[in-house]
């Protein structure tokens, strides 16, 4: 569905020449605990609707919450990894509002007493002058619970507008969420969209390295809301901000920020005012549109949750958790750069492709890092760009890529065939071996079969044989090409060349 209205946009260059953007990124991470935040229901994704529900997460009268110990642990580890202070005493609070996906019509969250606060994440942003370090301040990280899932029925697009009614599955209600909120991010205006993207990328790597979530944006286990406001160059007071939701991939974060900068600039330049509102991001054209504007700002009437006790982690426990933290991202990056012997630039490409973790996992399975990088940042990245997806969203795994690398180094595949195997895996035809078998992609290694093809090709181009005998060995290339074509690319080019030269009786090279 495209945007409902076409709002005027200023060019990005003009926008950043006139205004300074201020960003705030709110990221919700769905934890991978076995059970929900306040009850013992399983959290496994994909179960049949309403089969992972109990009196507590359904909000039945009389039900009471009890905090999941593992969720607290994960929250603290996330806070520590983000350099936050861990509150020695924090509380849950009720955020009161009505919505059908909320069983209690309040969300148990944290308000003015979050478990972690005041941290920072160091990121590297790609600029024309090379990677530049940027520090993104972290305001807080707190615990809360997820809502049920709504399906809108009727209406053209399965979205709210025009739907006749809705169907709700409460399996997801109560799944633990950690909300991470940045401090206002003010950077060189031209870099704002990249900084947003780099932050989300880094944060995701960190979350995955911590092992607290699989952080798949396309599956909703990591969600980003992008807040943006503009201030005229030289001014200090912040402008009115908008919040853009439904940003479902890392690349969308960058696009959403960019679009809002352009849109808000156009509004302000024409003398208009920005409406404080929630906006919806559209994947297909990178635009944002207005959500329904409310008559009055929502009053959540926060108060401390009386059914739960405060969380007061002792210092010993916090230190013990600190020792379980993975390497800080920049440190890990520097180490891998050295291990793999690659340049900053190459490392940045890996990161921009969202492939660092995937490469690392492939190498962990035994692959050479150069091979792993070649495939992930080469063919696979190309395909992901074509499809407008993040690399991590493609249905191909490090195990698949490692297998392809193994098959290639064994000589069963060449690069061309390998690309076809990748295509097959992405199409859901199975793992690499299955695709090779089903599509008949193995390299012909039987010399007998190759010789047949060589002889046929030589016979078809007799003058080439003469040239080769005369010493113009390069001429063999045409025969190699013909044999490759005849074997549908399933020959090993090097072996073919050897056979041609043998056949022709040329002097060994």
């Amino acid at each position: 569905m495209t945007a409902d209205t076409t709002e005027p946009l200023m060019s990005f260059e003009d926008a950043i020449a006139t205004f300074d953007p201020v960003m705030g990124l709110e990221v919700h991470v769905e934890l991978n605990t076995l059970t929900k935040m306040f009850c013992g229901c399983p959290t496994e994704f994909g179960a049949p609707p309403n089969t992972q529900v109990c009196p507590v997460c359904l909000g039945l009268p009389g039900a009471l919450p009890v905090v999941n110990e593992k969720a607290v642990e994960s929250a603290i580890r996330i806070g520590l990894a983000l350099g936050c202070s861990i509150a020695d005493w924090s509380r849950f609070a009720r955020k009161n509002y009505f919505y059908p996906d909320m069983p209690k019509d309040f969300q148990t969250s944290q308000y003015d007493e979050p478990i972690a606060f005041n941290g920072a994440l160091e990121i590297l942003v790609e600029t024309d002058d090379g990677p530049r370090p940027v520090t993104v301040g972290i305001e807080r990280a707190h615990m809360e619970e997820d809502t049920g899932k709504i399906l809108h029925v009727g209406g053209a697009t399965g979205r709210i507008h025009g739907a006749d009614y809705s169907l709700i599955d409460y399996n997801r209600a109560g799944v633990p969420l950690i909300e991470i909120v940045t401090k206002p991010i003010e950077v060189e205006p031209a870099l704002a969209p990249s900084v947003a993207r780099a932050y989300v990328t880094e944060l995701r790597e960190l979350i995955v390295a911590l092992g607290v979530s699989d952080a798949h944006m396309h599956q909703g286990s990591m969600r980003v809301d992008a807040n943006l406001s503009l201030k005229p160059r030289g001014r200090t007071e912040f402008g009115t901000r908008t919040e853009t939701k439904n940003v479902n991939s890392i690349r969308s974060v960058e696009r959403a920020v960019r679009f809002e900068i352009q849109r808000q600039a156009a509004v302000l330049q024409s003398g208009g005012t920005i409406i404080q509102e929630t906006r919806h991001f559209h994947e297909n054209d990178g635009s944002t549109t207005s959500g329904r504007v409310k008559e009055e700002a929502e009053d959540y009437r926060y108060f401390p949750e009386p059914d739960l006790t405060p969380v007061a982690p002792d210092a010993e426990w916090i230190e013990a958790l600190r020792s379980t933290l993975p390497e800080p991202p920049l440190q890990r990056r520097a180490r891998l750069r050295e291990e793999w012997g690659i340049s900053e630039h190459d490392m940045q490409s890996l990161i921009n492709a969202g492939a660092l973790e995937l490469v690392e996992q492939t190498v962990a399975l035994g692959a050479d890092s150069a091979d792993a990088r070649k495939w992930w940042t080469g063919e696979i990245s190309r395909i992901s760009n074509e499809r407008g997806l993040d690399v991590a969203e493609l249905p191909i795994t490090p195990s698949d890529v490692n297998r392809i690398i193994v098959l290639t180094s064994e000589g069963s595949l060449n690069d061309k065939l390998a690309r076809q195997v990748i295509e097959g895996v992405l199409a859901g035809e199975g793992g690499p071996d299955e695709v090779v078998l089903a599509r008949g992609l193995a390299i012909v290694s039987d010399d007998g079969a190759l010789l047949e093809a060589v002889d046929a090709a030589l016979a078809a181009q007799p003058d080439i044989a003469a040239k080769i005998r005369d010493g113009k060995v390069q001429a063999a290339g045409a025969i190699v090409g013909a044999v490759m074509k005849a074997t549908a690319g399933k020959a090993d080019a090097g072996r073919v060349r050897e056979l041609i030269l043998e056949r022709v009786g040329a002097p060994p090279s």
Partner: protein
Amino acid sequence: MSDLTLLGAAETAALVARGDVSAHEVTARHLDRIEQTDEAIHAFLHVDRGLALAQADEVDRARAEGAVLGPLAGVPLALKDVFTMQGAPTTCGSKILEGWHPPYDATVVERLKAGGVVVLGKTNMDEFAMGSSTENSAYGVTRNPWNLNRIPGGSSGGSSAAVAARQAPLAIGTDTGGSIRQPAAVTGIVGVKPTYGGVSRYGLVAFSSSLDQGGPFARSVLDAALLHEVIAGHDRRDATSIEAPVPRVVAAARGELGGVSGMKVGVVSQLQGEGYQSGVQARFDETVELLTGLGAEVIEVSCPSFEYALPAYYLIAPSECSSNLARFDGMRYGLRAGDDGEHGVEQVMSMTRAQGFGPEVKRRIMLGTYALSAGYYDAYYGQAQKVRTLIRRDFDAAYKKVDVLISPTTPTVAFLIGERADDPIAMYKADLATLPSSLYGGPAMSLPAGLGDDDLPVGVQLMAAVQRDEQVYRVGAVLEAALQERWGGALLDRIPELAMGGVA
């Protein structure tokens, strides 16, 4: 066998354990009593004869197989309709939950069942526990067995009336601001609010989460203690439940922890005098004198912050309830109104709640919403929680000087049905004496102190420090014995013969 409904719980349990009478017989007689009297009293909203007898039969079967029975096995009980119980509806006295059958048992119910206690049915209450007269029930009023034109108290009026009318020797109610103690006082029986956290709230439909507490009604202090021990104790499903062992209330009620001689009893200056009916004050003064006669040292204690208990309570409770009752939106269970294809979800929610909630509930929801709203939180809810701290400090200071505190339970005897229905503030004043200990969280008992105006029951309230529930039972038992000696029997013996099928 003479009238089984005249017996107390301990006695009944003993007879059943010895095999002198079957649990089936006991339950059947009480079901008959309900049938004879409940048209007049309307204590029950739901009675399931088959289910009750099946529970009783289970006890008889266990006994026959030689199992060791719990101390209250085979004793019938009336359960306030605010607890979830499978196989029966739970309405909370509201239309919004009409016909709702919960898919799970409250912890209290699990413990009653495990103890072999026979739940006869669910009793009437003020809607969502908001009220002091049971007039706020959407299913009609319950009448005081002492005088059918009078309120039985609230919000646990049905439970209290059931015990006073001998429809069951035991009942369970809930007390948030006085909703067990005040009905007990105006119906002439014993009612106890345990220390907050002493009885699990899992399955207790929440009104005010930081104040709600389930507790026993009975016709004697010992019976109340026996029931207290069955239902109390830590529950992992309730994060606010106390982990410490249940206070030794049965031992205390049996006098095993000592008598009152040498104990210090505090009379709270703020909880008597002006606003208290002369009969209530007189019975209270006599009770205090009696305690002195029994060897207790009585001291006057001043708790100035108690003056603010009513306003603090009527900010805290509505605030919490406005949030607790938000879930009743017509989406997942209960009433749904206005879903005719013309109305969107917001309207359906609003119409459902408008239709399903009564006036008092709506008032408190709006009051609570106001007290929590942006800009008002600090002055109202925030300030009320500070007053709560001051009240706690007054109690802490008092309990350094005395072992228990004593006051009249409620300022008046049972008022007439309809008398305060249009005057919310007058209604709220019924809780003046019970509110402070609710806000503090300590245990409190009401026991009969005699008759007051219009020959209606007066209750006296004993209060103790947090987690010292045994203290109120200790003093209560001694006081009860002394008073009953003075009266030549229980106060309830004097209940008039009413037009309740001719049986008093």
